[in-house]
């Protein structure tokens, strides 16, 4: 367990004792060792039998060990998080059934400490409001910009309810604006945008989402029987926007495109059926070059029903040979690093030869965000 969590646990322990409770069971060496084993789940360094044994020990823990287990969620993999969550739930259920008591103040402190892992804070919050339902209304108003997206979502939901009930339009507008700015969930964002529209307020959706709307594109190249997905066409070798190449039918050359859609339903949409001639068995490339003033860690997020490959600065980040199996907001997400100076985004998007009406779309929406999904575009696009 990292030192920070250990100190934190000890601090909470001391506070717990000072307010008159009996001293909780001090974690045994066996308990700590088991906790460490569960933290290593997914790293390939612990056997299944060891995991099972460790979980049985940790799940036998007491109520006052819950936050110690939650703190152990720091910087671990998703499978390890689930093992620890199951242990916490098992302990909390048992304690509530047997003694009807959980360490309320300890849980509250854990929730409000932003240095704790997001999912651990969320778990603590869920158990806290089981024993103290009013804590929900006390804590959520301060979580509208929380780094835990689950807590932020609930806080915004509560703020939207407040906006709906607000006595006047100015107050409604203020609540909706704050909700919109903080929202990372699409449904909540849509709800805020529509409510603000009714109040005569329009938002910069392109910037909010971080949609990339200006592209340089070339195509169509041949994708008969899907073979174009793996075939390396010239743009994959080298980006030279002055050159023209043999496409599927004719010579093709790079052209500029800007998505002008402003309505929420189509904001950021790049529809290749509209830009190029609607065709089947084709592929196209779209590129963006831009300057970044510094090294930046971002996320590339896009939705499409077409097969795609995504490169950032020549590195292949996403490869999805999937057609017409649902197109959803933020369907594909990859972390990426922008370097100081010139950077390049290159997207290859393929259309297959299905003839059903629902297989017509050949389009995408692409955005650059921070790690929580907040729009992070444009970034000093070069002329």
């Amino acid at each position: 367990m990292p030192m920070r969590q250990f100190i934190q646990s000890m601090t909470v322990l001391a506070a717990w004792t000072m307010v008159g409770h009996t001293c909780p069971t001090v974690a045994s060496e066996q308990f700590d060792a088991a906790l460490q084993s569960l933290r290593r789940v997914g790293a390939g360094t612990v056997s299944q039998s060891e995991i099972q044994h460790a979980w049985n020990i940790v799940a036998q823990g007491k109520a006052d060990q819950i936050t110690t287990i939650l703190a152990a969620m720091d910087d671990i993999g998703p499978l390890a998080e689930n093992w620890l969550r199951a242990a916490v739930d098992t302990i909390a259920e048992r304690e509530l059934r047997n003694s009807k008591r959980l360490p309320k103040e300890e849980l509250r402190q854990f929730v409000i400490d932003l240095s704790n892992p997001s999912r651990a804070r969320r778990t603590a919050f869920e158990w806290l409001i089981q024993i103290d339902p009013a804590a929900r209304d006390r804590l959520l108003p301060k979580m509208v910009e929380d780094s835990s997206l689950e807590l932020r979502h609930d806080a915004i939901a509560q703020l939207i309810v407040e906006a709906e009930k607000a006595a006047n339009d100015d107050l409604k507008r203020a609540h909706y604006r704050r909700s919109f700015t903080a929202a990372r969930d699409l449904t909540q964002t849509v709800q805020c945008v529509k409510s603000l529209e009714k109040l005569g307020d329009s938002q910069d959706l392109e910037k909010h989402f971080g949609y990339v709307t200006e592209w340089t594109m070339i195509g169509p190249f041949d994708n008969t029987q899907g073979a174009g997905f793996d075939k390396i066409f010239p743009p994959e070798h080298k980006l030279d926007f002055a050159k023209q190449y043999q496409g599927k039918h004719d010579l093709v050359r790079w052209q500029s495109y800007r998505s002008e859609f402003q309505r929420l339903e189509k904001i950021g949409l790049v529809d290749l059926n509209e830009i190029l001639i609607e065709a089947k068995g084709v592929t196209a490339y779209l590129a963006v070059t831009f300057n970044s003033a510094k090294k930046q860690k971002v996320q590339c997020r896009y939705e499409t029903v077409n097969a795609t490959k995504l490169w950032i600065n020549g590195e292949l980040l996403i490869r999805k040979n999937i057609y017409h199996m649902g197109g959803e907001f933020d369907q594909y997400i990859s972390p990426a690093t922008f370097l100081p100076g010139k950077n390049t985004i290159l997207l290859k998007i393929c259309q297959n030869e299905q003839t059903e009406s629902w297989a017509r779309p050949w389009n995408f929406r692409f955005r650059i965000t921070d790690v929580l999904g907040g729009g992070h575009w444009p970034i000093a696009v070069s002329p």
Partner: protein
Amino acid sequence: MHSLIVKSLTLGLVASILANSINAHASDWPMFRGPGARSVAESANLPLEWSIADDQNIAWRADLPGRGVSSPIVVSGRVFVTCSDGLNRSRLHVVAIDAESGERIWHRQFWATGRTFCNGTSAVAAPTPASDGSRIFAYFSSSDVVALDLDGNLLWIRGLSIDFPGAGNDIGLSSSPVVAGDVVVIQSEAQGNSFVTAIDIHNGATRWDRERPQQSVWSSPIVITQNHGGKQADAVVLQSGKGVSALLAGTGELLWEYPMACSTSTSPVFDRLLCVPAGGLRALDVSEIGNSSEAVIWAETKLGPGYSSPLIANGQVFVISGAGVLTCGALESGKILWRRRLGGRFWATPVISGNYLYCMNSEGKSFVVQIDEKGRIVSEDEFGEDILASPAIANDALFVRSHKHLWKIAREGAERN
């Protein structure tokens, strides 16, 4: 043809459906479509009518913590239900409810490790869990598999999208796992990464896996016993758009395959003959596959199921079309015996007890149909909520779940097990 039928019926004694009876009680409903995936409870004493509005023959109604189109399963007096909800549908739930009282016994929650997109009518909790009688294997569309004992103690977890990158599709998976011997078999077929894998029920280790056609499939496997090297062995029957095949459950060895354009959404059913939704319904004598071109005993386009799966009982086969028409055919010949228009769209596969078929359409309307009276509708009711999950029968009760609730329907005053 006749000799084939006789032979197949005789072989039916040998190639009988596996009832997943490792530790299961006779009255359990341990998997999607119940024992043997046949949707049949031979001797349950169910009510022939009920009323949600008037609370007639409704033993209890329990709240559920999230959405789901997975079926409830019933093991050792407990009902197990999976649900999903939360931000991006990423919270997975497994709930154990006391079958007698409707009280929640335990509730475990997990975060999805794989893709959580799905059609708006469905849920990440779409596959029905399976049990060997002492463990629950909960599988989700996010490609997460969780094994718990009946008291909610975690035994193992697998995130299949970690082991099989690209697993799943963004409409949602729904194929339910099956237990065969000491493995739980999961069919995960999609464009991104298509496979079937057998996981050791004791420790969660992969026993074997096989690539599958790169096409989305929502149908569920079934388990039959087959002669292999002079011994009876569990075989997993898998259906895809390219055909139906059987793999040895213990090793993944291909026993046979039969190419045909099968339905990718409904599931096969086996009772002496293997009935496969494919251009209607086709009945196969599995003992003849590979030996004879006459493995298909009959094919009937008018027995094509819509969204729910076919079922077999009393020597008859039943399907509900996409238009909500219930059709009964003779198992031996495929001859149409009767039809009854129920109306609505049926995602939930009906269940049979005795001479009665219990059907629920997606709008939440229920029908009790007498199958020895040419489909006479005995009673109807309304749940008032969408019903997409197939019901379960156990302990003389019918268990029906919506996205919000689980109902137990049982005769009032009847002695409860």
